[in-house]
C-alpha cells in the first residue's frame, strides 16, 4: 500500500458528499443543538392540550377563570421557547460562531411564530375566551420574559419567570387589575397591554441576540 490512495482520498467524510448550502446546514445544526425539533413537538402538544381543554370543556366558558387555562398554556409555550435558548457548546460556540447572534434571533422569532400558530390551530372551531389575539399577545409577552430570564438563569431554567409571572397574573385576573403591565389579563383590544407585551418581547429578543443566554457548562444537555 502506498500513500497515494490516502492523498487522493476526498476530504469530505463518507456519506456527506451531497451537501446542502452552508447556511442551511449551519442553521439546521444550530436548531438541532437547541433541540428545536423537540421544541416544535412540545409546542404542538401545547396546541393539542388547548384544543382538548376547549373541546371537552375542562375549563370555564366565561368569567375571569375562563382566561386562566389559555393563559397557562400560552405561558407554557413561551417557557418552552425560552428553554430552547440553551446551548450545549457554551464558550466554544460563542468564540467561533460569527452567525450565532443572527441564528439566535431567527430561532426565537421562528419559534414564537410556531407557538402562536400551534395555539391558534388548537383553538380553531372552539370558543376561546378573549379570542386568539389575546393568546398571541400573551405568547409574545411571556416569550419576552422567558428570553430575559435566560440571560440570568441560563436557557434550561428560563421557564421559571414566565410561569411565575403567570401565577401572579392569576391574582391580577381575579382582582381585575387594569395596569398595562398586567397585559396577560387585559382585553385583546387594550393598546397599553399590546405595547407592554411587545416591548418586553423586543427587549428580550434584542438582549438574547446581542448577549446570548447565560451558559453553564455543567448543565450541558
Amino acid at each position, binding site marked *: 500500500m502506498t500513500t497515494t490512495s490516502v492523498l487522493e482520498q476526498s476530504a469530505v467524510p463518507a456519506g456527506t458528499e451531497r451537501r446542502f448550502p452552508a447556511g442551511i446546514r449551519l442553521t439546521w445544526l444550530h436548531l438541532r443543538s437547541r433541540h428545536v425539533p423537540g421544541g416544535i413537538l*412540545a409546542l404542538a402538544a401545547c396546541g393539542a392540550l388547548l384544543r382538548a381543554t376547549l373541546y371537552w370543556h375542562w375549563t370555564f366558558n366565561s368569567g375571569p*377563570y375562563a382566561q386562566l387555562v389559555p393563559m397557562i398554556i400560552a405561558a407554557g409555550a413561551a417557557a418552552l421557547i425560552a428553554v430552547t435558548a440553551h446551548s450545549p457548546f457554551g464558550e466554544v460556540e460563542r468564540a467561533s460562531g460569527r452567525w450565532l447572534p443572527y441564528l439566535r434571533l431567527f430561532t426565537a422569532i421562528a419559534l414564537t411564530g410556531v407557538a402562536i400558530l400551534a395555539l391558534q390551530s388548537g383553538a380553531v372551531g372552539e370558543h376561546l375566551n378573549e379570542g386568539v389575539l389575546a393568546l398571541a399577545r400573551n405568547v409574545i409577552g411571556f416569550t419576552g420574559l422567558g428570553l430575559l430570564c435566560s440571560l440570568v438563569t441560563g436557557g434550561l431554567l428560563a421557564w421559571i419567570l414566565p410561569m411565575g409571572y403567570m401565577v401572579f397574573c392569576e391574582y391580577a385576573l381575579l382582582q381585575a387589575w387594569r395596569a398595562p403591565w398586567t397585559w396577560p389579563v387585559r382585553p385583546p383590544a387594550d393598546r397599553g397591554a399590546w405595547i407592554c407585551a411587545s416591548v418586553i418581547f423586543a427587549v428580550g429578543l434584542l438582549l438574547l441576540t446581542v448577549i446570548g443566554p447565560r451558559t453553564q457548562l455543567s448543565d450541558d444537555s
Partner: protein
Amino acid sequence: MSAMSVALPRPARALRLELKRNAVPYLLPLLAAVFYFDTLRTAAGFPPIWTQRASVIPNHMLLEFSVFAGGMAAWAGSREGRRKTVDLVRTTSRAAWARLSVALAGTLCWLLLAFLAGVAVVYIQTALRATWGGPPLWPVFVGATGVVVVTVVGFAAGVFFPGRFTAPLVAIGVLVLNQIGFRAALGITAPGPTSVLPSPPTSAPYGLLSPATGAPLIDAGVYYHVAPDLAITQVIFMGGIAVALFGVLGLAVGLHELAWAGGRRRMRAAIARSDGWPYRAVAVLLVASGVAASWTGLALAGTAKLTATGGWEIPALHSAASDQSASAAQDCTSSPGFQVCVHPAFGFYLHHVATALDPLAAEIAGLPGAPVRATEVASVSGGNVVQSGIAGNPPVFEFTAERVGNLFGEFYGLPDPAAWASEFQQGLLEAFLAGPSQSASPAGTQLGAAQLAVADALLAAIGSQPMAPSNSGQSALKSGPATVAEMSAAARRFAALPASARHAWLAAHLTALRAGTITLTQIP
C-alpha cells in the same frame, strides 16, 4: 476536618450535600413574591376567620407551589440524564433508588420548608386579627401532601424523561390539572341561585378530591366544627399517588433495562438480576400500596354526603364528634333598650354593627314587633340557608354572617363602610316593616310603596342612605302604580315630622302599614 466535628451518618451527609447544591433556594425570592401577591393579599382580603383564611392554602398557595415544585423536581430528577452521568453513577455501590431518594428528599425538604414558612406567615397574619378560634391543621396537611405529590410526579418525570422540556411541561401539566380539578370541584360546590349549600357529587365525585375549591361559607368552622372527612380523603388519594410513584422510582433502573432489553433472553436476565431483589420487592409493595390508597380515596369520595351544616360527611371516616356545635358565649354590647350580639369570631365588627343598628333601634323602640336585641346566628341550619328576620318574644332581629336583608356574599369587605352599615339598617327595617307574617325569602323581603316610604324616612332621620330600588328586593313589583317621586315625597314629609310624631303615627298605624292598607297619601 477538625477533630471536634461530628461525623454524620452517610445518608445524612448525602442529604446535606443535596440540600447545599439544590436549585430550589435560588427560586425562593420569586416564590416569595408570588406568595405575597397571590396568597397573602388574598388572605388579607378575607375576614379574620380561621377557616376562611386557611382556605387560601389549598386554593392559592398550593397552585403557586405546584408550578415550581413540579418544575424544580423535574429539574432535579433529570440531573443524571441531563448531565449524561447515568452510566457513571450506575457503577457506584449504592442502589439507584437510594441515590434518587436523596435528590428527591433534598428538593422536597426545601419545598416543604418554604411551604410551611408560608403557612406560618398566613397564620400569624390571621392570629393578629382573629378574635376567636385557632389555626385549622387539615388544610395544611392537604397542602403539604399536594406539594409532596407534585414534587414526586415532577421528579419521576425528570428521571424517566430527562430532557430540557420536561420541567416546563410538568409545570404546565400540573397547572392545567389544577384548573381542571378546580372546575370539577366548583361544579360540585357551586351554590345554587337560592342556596349557599353545594350540590351532592352525583356525577363527578373526583371533583371532591381536588384541593382547590371555592371559598367556604364565611362562618364555616365557627358554629360547627369542620368535619375533616374530605381532607382525610384528599390526603389518602394524593399520598397514594406519591407513594406509588416513589415505588416506581425504585423500579426505574429495572424499567430502563426492560425498555432497552432486546430479545427474550436478555429480558429474562434483566428481570432475574438477583442483586436488586429486596429493593424491587419493596418498590413493588409501595406501588401496590399507593395504588390501593388512591383507589380507596377515590371510592371514599364517591360516598360523600352533605351534612346539615353545609359540610361533607364520608360515612367510613365520619366522627359524630365533628357534628357537635362549637359552643362559645356571644360577644354583646348594649345601649339603652337594645343589645347587639355576635359570635366571638366576628367580634372584630361588633361595634360597627352596634353603631349601625342602635340609632334605628331607638327610632322604633317600643313599637309592636320592634326588636330588643340583634343577634348573629349560623348561616346554615338543618341543611337550610338561614335568612335574616325578626322572630321570638321578645322580638329578636337575627342575621347571619352570610346574609343580612338582601345583602349576600358581601358581608365583609365592602369598599364603603357607610354602605355596609346601611345594609344592616335596611335589613332590620325591612324585617320590622314587613312584620312577622311575611317570612323572609332569599330574594329579599317585599315592601310596598308606603312601607318603602316609611323606611326611607326612618333611614333619613338617622342620617343614613335611603333604600335603592335594587336593595329592596322586589318592592317595585309591590309598589304598584306609585312612582319613585311619589314615594320620595312621602318619605320627605314623614322624615320632616318630629321624632315623637313619627313614633306616635307608627304606633297607631303600624298594623295597617304592615298589612299594606296604608297608601302614600295617608302618610303624614
